[in-house]
């Protein structure tokens, strides 16, 4: 298997400006109290990665309990909002509207430069390598940054480009892109992508099975998500300010995700953690909240070593799959 490391000089402030993030977080937490208040709207679940029952408490956050799976070491919210409650939240909430209208829009150039182009290159490379289909089709699920299609179109690799249930209104500024907005789930897709969605799902297993049904026999699923195996989440745990319900119901470990994909009938082609921000997340967290406790060695690294040492440390995390930003390409098992 292969894995990938990336260096592009990405800064947290470019894609998560603190003012916008604070407001998004405030709205999310505030609305989660109203949307998921009713006991009918939350449900206890087994480990979403490996289905194990044995758990211990990981942390409490904004009224939600996060459990640690004793088997695969994934962390997850349980009880959690039901599928129906989540659907209503994602359709109606002000927080989601704010993410689209402000967070996504205002950070689009930086996300395009650092993330979108990279994701497109990544998908193009693997499709080139792994599929022989003459006419190739591509669908992105829940598109938040339509610039992705500019990049995908530039490869001239796919005959059709689709967006299924886009979050961003696709007809606004990207009318010239030959992208079909789908209302029904597609089938026989050469490539399907879903960026930063798995962590929101009530049932990641059901989500993956439904994606598998969209793939052609040679089809490949590309996704990114947050993994609790990564450095910043291992160091900060529940103190991580950007972890909250319903944005993060599932913080699965790498081992848990491997098992989940296997259970869902998908085989990993590439699994990497090309995150560039773990150390910055920790640094900014303790700067903003001095009460957050971290291991003294990490504190020493942050306070007594320069940017080059920090970049090298982050490169080490990527190389050894220890960043919390997980990127996976998986194909349908025969």
């Amino acid at each position: 298997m292969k894995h990938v490391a990336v260096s592009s000089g990405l800064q947290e402030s470019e894609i998560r400006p603190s003012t916008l993030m604070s407001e998004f977080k405030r709205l999310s937490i505030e609305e989660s109290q109203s949307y998921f208040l009713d006991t009918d709207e939350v449900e206890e679940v087994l480990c979403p990665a490996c289905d194990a029952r044995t758990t211990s408490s990981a942390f409490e956050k904004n009224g939600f309990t996060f459990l640690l799976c004793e088997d695969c070491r994934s962390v997850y919210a349980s009880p959690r909002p039901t599928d129906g409650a989540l659907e209503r939240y994602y359709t109606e909430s002000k927080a989601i509207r704010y993410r689209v209208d402000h967070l996504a829009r205002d950070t689009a150039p930086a996300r395009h430069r650092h993330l979108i182009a990279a994701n497109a290159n990544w998908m193009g490379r693997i499709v080139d390598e792994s599929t022989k289909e003459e006419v190739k089709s591509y669908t992105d699920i829940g598109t938040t940054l339509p610039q992705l299609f500019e990049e995908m179109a530039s490869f001239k690799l796919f005959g059709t480009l689709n967006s299924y249930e886009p979050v961003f209104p696709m007809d606004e500024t990207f009318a010239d892109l030959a992208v079909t907005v789908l209302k029904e789930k597609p089938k026989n897709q050469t490539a399907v992508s879903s960026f930063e969605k798995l962590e929101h799902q009530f049932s990641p297993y059901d989500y993956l099975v439904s994606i598998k049904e969209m793939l052609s026999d040679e089809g490949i699923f590309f996704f990114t998500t947050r993994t609790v195996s990564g450095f910043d989440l291992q160091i900060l745990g529940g103190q991580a300010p950007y972890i909250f319900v319903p944005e993060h119901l599932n913080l699965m470990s790498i081992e848990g995700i491997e098992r989940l994909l296997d259970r869902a009938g998908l085989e990993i082609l590439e699994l990497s953690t090309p995150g560039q921000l773990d150390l910055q997340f920790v640094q900014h967290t303790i700067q903003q909240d001095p009460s957050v406790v971290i291991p003294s060695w990490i504190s020493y690294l942050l306070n007594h070593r320069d940017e080059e040492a920090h970049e090298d440390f982050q490169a080490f995390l990527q190389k050894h799959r220890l960043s919390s930003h997980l990127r996976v390409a998986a194909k349908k098992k025969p």
Partner: protein
Amino acid sequence: MTEVLNIGLIGLGKMGLTRAREIARHPQAKVVVGADPNTESFKNYPEVRCSTEIQDVIASDVDAVFVATPNRFTPDSVIAALDSGKHVFCEKPPGRTVADVEAILEAEKRNPGLKLKFGFNHRYHGGIQEAHRMVRSGRLGKILFLRGVYGKSGGEGYEKEWRSSKELCGGGILLDQGIHMLDLFRLFCGDFVDVKSLVSTHYWEVDVEDNVFAILRDTEGRTAMLHSSSTQWKHRFNLEIYMSEGYLSVNGILSSTRSYGDETVTVARKKFDEGFDAGKPREEIIYFDTDPSWELEVADFIRHISEDSPVESGNSEQALKAMQLVFDIYADDSKG
């Protein structure tokens, strides 16, 4: 064609053992007979009939022969195997001279139904295959130039190794190891028509070269620069491919000892528009966790025999042209 190919193995040194391991893992092949001056080498293969005589393999009823001998013995072994009706897999380099390879190719022509494949396994490394796919995709534009460094440290007793003897090998580090880089240059650029070189023996007390610097120009005017060394105290493999829209760099090559480091491909697109960041583009490094080259190469050879399909990677034309480049490099230095 039998369902499982019976294989004969000539030479059971390091390379022969590697091939034996891969043949044993392949469901369609098994080693049944082998020859090596030291029959003790076969102690882990009790089912193999072993001999000190190459002729015992040639005269056997095997379907194919793997030749992994010092260069001096390679052409005769390959030619005898072909002329006795066996498919042949031959380790590189395919002899001591261009004439050796030409003689092998004559034997191949005399036996058109047989497969002949040469062991240029670097073509099967994950990093090289990835780089090759990227170049072919055209996403990084057209190749401008190549720069390759391939070096090892020699080590204690290097002077006494058969690889350091002109009599046994015909050349030094360039013929032994640098030929892989030349083969890769050809994989990416095709034929080279101009050669400039400096060939030297500065450190090791051997009658072959320990360092070669060469600049080659291909039919389209593109340049490839090579440094092949046996005084590279820290082992190094690096192939840079600079293209009109970006670059690729294959660093390290996975080996059993990992002495060439991790095998990675670094890829980046050029950036002219980022002010102070110009010259520091976003890089992506792809790590390869395993080396499938030996397995894939043996599997390809067996597949070509089973399917009666032409050898694509490591065929005789590629072997001849790589060998010609080696000797063009030697010849250019002699002019000076």
